């Protein structure tokens, strides 16, 4: 009962005195129960359903549907898109965060808002933007077509849409971190004779590495899982421009449930791995933030 509060010592009074911020036991169990029910209903149950559906006909069937050439192509394409989009956003994100956190310039508030834009716009709109830019009735589209460059309904369009949607993850993660750290570490390195590149490599990057990894992880999860924007620009060409989320939709619409859920398990696994890594990073990362505060 000790955790319920402190007994009033000395007087022999055994009545329990509750700590002001702790709730009654009933209230606590009700709240915890509600939260558990909610999590179970909306998170655990669907996840379990995905896995049971996928393995309904046994693991053999599971592997067979995954080795289907179209499905395999979708997995390959998803990996390819992530491999292109994530490193680019890593570079863009560091550059944007660096500019915003370490320099004063006009239009900084505007740039910060702009970085958030992909978060606030519906992914479908994000996709449509590229249709408007590169479609056959746009200014750029016919010119590019003439020169044999295919953007829409091809890999470049999917990559562009994915980059657009996932742009904020790295930058958003780094800006507050870099702002908090300030510029004196960099100034110290410069005063010791380090070049700009050495300063970045030996001082700035180590200071932000956990935040950066965290941002990259979230960016990657979204890049692989993005549906809306990619759906608009991909054209759904089987075996060519279908990413995993699009493949899931197609298989499902064809009543090919086992295959649909098999691909879905891969995406779900990705989400779980991301979550675990994220939690591990957060543990590490919070220690580091605490250390930098003590610093």
């Amino acid at each position: 009962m000790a955790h319920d509060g402190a007994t009033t010592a000395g007087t022999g009074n055994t009545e329990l005195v509750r700590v002001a911020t702790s709730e009654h036991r009933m209230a606590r169990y009700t709240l915890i129960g509600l939260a558990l029910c909610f999590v179970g209903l909306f998170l655990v149950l669907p996840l379990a359903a995905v896995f049971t559906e996928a393995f309904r006909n046994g693991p053999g069937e599971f592997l067979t549907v995954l080795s289907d050439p179209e499905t395999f192509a979708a997995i390959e394409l998803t990996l390819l898109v992530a491999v292109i989009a994530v490193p680019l956003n890593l570079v863009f994100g560091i550059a944007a965060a660096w500019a915003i956190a370490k320099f004063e310039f006009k239009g900084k508030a505007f740039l910060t808002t702009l970085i958030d834009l992909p978060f606030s716009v519906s992914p479908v709109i994000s996709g449509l933007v590229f249709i408007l830019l590169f479609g056959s009735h746009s200014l750029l589209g016919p010119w590019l077509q003439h020169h044999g460059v295919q953007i829409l309904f091809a890999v470049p369009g999917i990559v562009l849409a994915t980059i657009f949607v996932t742009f904020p993850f790295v930058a958003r993660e780094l800006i507050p971190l870099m702002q908090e750290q300030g510029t004196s570490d960099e100034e110290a390195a410069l005063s010791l004779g380090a070049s700009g590149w050495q300063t970045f490599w030996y001082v700035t990057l180590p200071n932000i590495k956990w935040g950066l990894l965290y941002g990259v992880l979230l960016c990657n999860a979204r890049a692989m899982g993005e549906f809306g924007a990619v759906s608009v620009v991909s054209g759904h060409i089987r075996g060519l421009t279908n990413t995993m989320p699009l493949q899931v939709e197609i298989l499902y619409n064809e009543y090919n449930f086992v295959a649909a859920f098999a691909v879905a398990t891969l995406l779900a696994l990705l989400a779980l791995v991301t979550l675990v890594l994220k939690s591990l990073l957060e543990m590490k990362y919070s220690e580091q933030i605490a250390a930098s505060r003590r610093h």
Partner: protein
Amino acid sequence: MEVRVQNIRKEFGRFPALNDVSLDIRSGELIALLGPSGSGKTTLLRLIAGLESPTEGTVYFGNEDASRKSVQQRNIGFVFQHYALFRHMTVLDNVSFGLTIRPSGRRPSKADIRQRALELLDLVQLSGLEKRYPAQLSGGQRQRVALARAMAVEPNVLLLDEPFGALDAQVRKELRRWLREIHDRTGHTTVFVTHDQDEALELADRVVVMSKGQIEQIGTPDEIYDTPNSPFVFGFIGQSNILPVRVENGQLWIADRSIGVSAQGEPDGPAQLYFRPHDIELLDGNGGCIAGLVTVTRRVAGTRHVELDIGGANSRVEIELPPEKVTSDHSRVAFRPTRWKLFRD
């Protein structure tokens, strides 16, 4: 190395941070830039370092114009108020940093760098802590690492920005004495910024008092304390009393009473009398003195601070008496300043 700052002006946007500042720093000197916040002292330090560039004016290192040189080319050592140690590197790596990043032609061998870093850690009395990380050190230890790191590159000039500002009083005092010792041993030309006058007066060979982007006075601690050349310096350094007085025929008057202080050669007219609480003599008489009733007494370490109400407007005066001189409230005390200065508006 000798450092000269000539007619420096610095504006941030349209805000003038420094206005026509000139300063000669002698080789091997330990010099303090002292002033309230916003006086431009840190800006001046950063301009010497090359972390800021002046709007106008020139900085010379020896006979060389350093104004167009980058911070890397100036070869300075800079110590920050909040240490700015590289938190992911050990103490040894922090101190070695300036040498290890040199291009291979100018870089000492690995063994030499290690040797030098260990020597410096010995100098700053941190031997044995070379494998620690900054987070595992106390504030005072971190600042000593920062100083060792700055000295590792054999800087032309050592620049310290409020080096003890983030430390508690006890450690600050200790480090002050220790910095003076290090300076005497190594002979680096050193400039440090502080808003703590005790620190400046105790530590520096010369003190530069700054206010509102200008230099008010440059002098030895004695000169600054004993002969302040402006009301600002008099008021900013140490304790001071200010009384409105009138000069008549070489005598000072408060209202209708002569206070027994002769000011030969001063033109007649109103003036402000500045004097320090301890630069006084107690008197018994009624004429030729400043007299008042005790309102508050405080015992501060080895002296007794007594506040007097001497009547009239703007009439509160604080004087320092020996502790054995006990005064009760409302008793009458008469005194006369022995060392003072007049300033006119």
